[in-house]
């Protein structure tokens, strides 16, 4: 299994021993050893996954990074959230996905009416299996727990991802004030119910 280590809160070091990771295209800042970078045409999801992403407007590209050596990865000086998975599944807003182990399965799933006005894709990326996942967060990521007795509401622009036995739905808070242009700016939210963990960033995507 590949080794992920945070060199600092903003720089990820991935050690490869003849292995592969999927990383966001263009996120490599330095490396040593024998490493190859190739754009992953299908994003590790087969033709259908790639097609769905194209249609869904998931505006991000992955590259496969393979070989033996150390790769340093960073994106816009954003802070990096490392999530080790033990036979679990994580849902990540794809614009926040930075890198994951190639041994895991990834897919693009329909996530509801996200971003009808926030301009985000209609799909979220899932990564499933055992290994490491790295996501970027504008500011230090906040981990919130969801329990059956306490559902959680999150601004879609601050949402990074979630894992656990959680159901996600969209809540619209539209009333006559919204209609006459007196919106509070918080007209719709993501609602999470169940048992699990939600990751958010202390900033809203522009």
């Amino acid at each position, binding site marked *: 299994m590949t080794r992920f280590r945070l*060199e*600092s809160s*903003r*720089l990820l070091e991935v050690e490869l021993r003849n292995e592969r990771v999927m990383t966001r*295209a*263009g996120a*490599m*800042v*330095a*490396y*040593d050893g024998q*490493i*190859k*970078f*190739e*754009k992953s*045409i299908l994003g590790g999801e087969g033709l259908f996954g790639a097609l769905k992403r194209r249609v869904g407007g998931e505006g991000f*590209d992955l*590259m496969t990074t393979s070989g033996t050596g150390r790769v*340093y990865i*960073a*994106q*816009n*000086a954003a802070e990096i959230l490392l999530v080790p998975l033990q036979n679990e599944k994580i849902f990540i807003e794809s614009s926040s996905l930075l890198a994951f182990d190639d041994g895991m399965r990834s897919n693009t799933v329909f996530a509801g009416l996200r971003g009808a006005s926030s301009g985000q894709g209609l799909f979220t990326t899932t990564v499933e299996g055992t290994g490491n996942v790295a996501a970027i967060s504008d500011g230090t990521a906040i981990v919130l727990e969801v329990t059956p007795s306490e559902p959680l509401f999150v601004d879609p622009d601050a949402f990074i991802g979630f894992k656990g036995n959680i159901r996600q739905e969209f809540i619209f808070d539209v009333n006559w004030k919204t209609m006459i242009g007196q919106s509070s700016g918080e007209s719709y939210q993501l609602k999470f119910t169940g048992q699990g963990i939600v990751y958010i960033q202390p900033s809203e995507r522009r």
Partner: protein
Amino acid sequence: MPQYSLINSKMLSIKLHGEEVYAKRGSMIAYTGQVDFAPSSSGSEGLGGRAMRSVTGEQMSLMSARGTGEVLYAFYGLHVTLIQLSEETFFAESESLLAYDGRLRSGTQFMGSGGMQGMLRGAATGSGLFTTTLEGAGELAIVSDGDSFALDVTHERPIFVDPQAYIGHRGQLQSNIVTDVGWKSFVGQSSGESYQLKFTGLGTVYIQAAERGGNR
């Protein structure tokens, strides 16, 4: 001798006792005492260096501060790193250079070894293939988007760096531009990592956790 100190990770203080300090234009945020500021396009280098800069496009937009007092510098909330030189040469990406003074001599150098062809390529892409050199003994300050990282280069461990994340290097290092252009680059499937700077030898390379020109 000007005294450099960091107020916090993003703010630099320089105490002047009659000397002249060169800094990125527009980076002064406050000062006390009697200090005069003037634009300077070339810092502490001669006419030849100035001509070299206009040819290579490695422009430095500097201002000088002269007088007695304390000047505070900061640049768009970027992180500041202080570097101490003892009779050696530091190579800095000019955009990352925040401040230095007359104890260091500045110049321009090409990073690659591809001869004229490589030089033209560098000039065409304009992304940090020429660096500013600072030579002598003294301090200098660099800025980085996110904190800066020092990566050690040894004879057994050459380092490859994205030119847009490169901020500087020191030591006995040779730099080369390596291209990784395969058939995929030609059909629009580039990984976005088509060329890199390769450093071999013994020394230290400084990088930042962001790529210049990236969308924020």
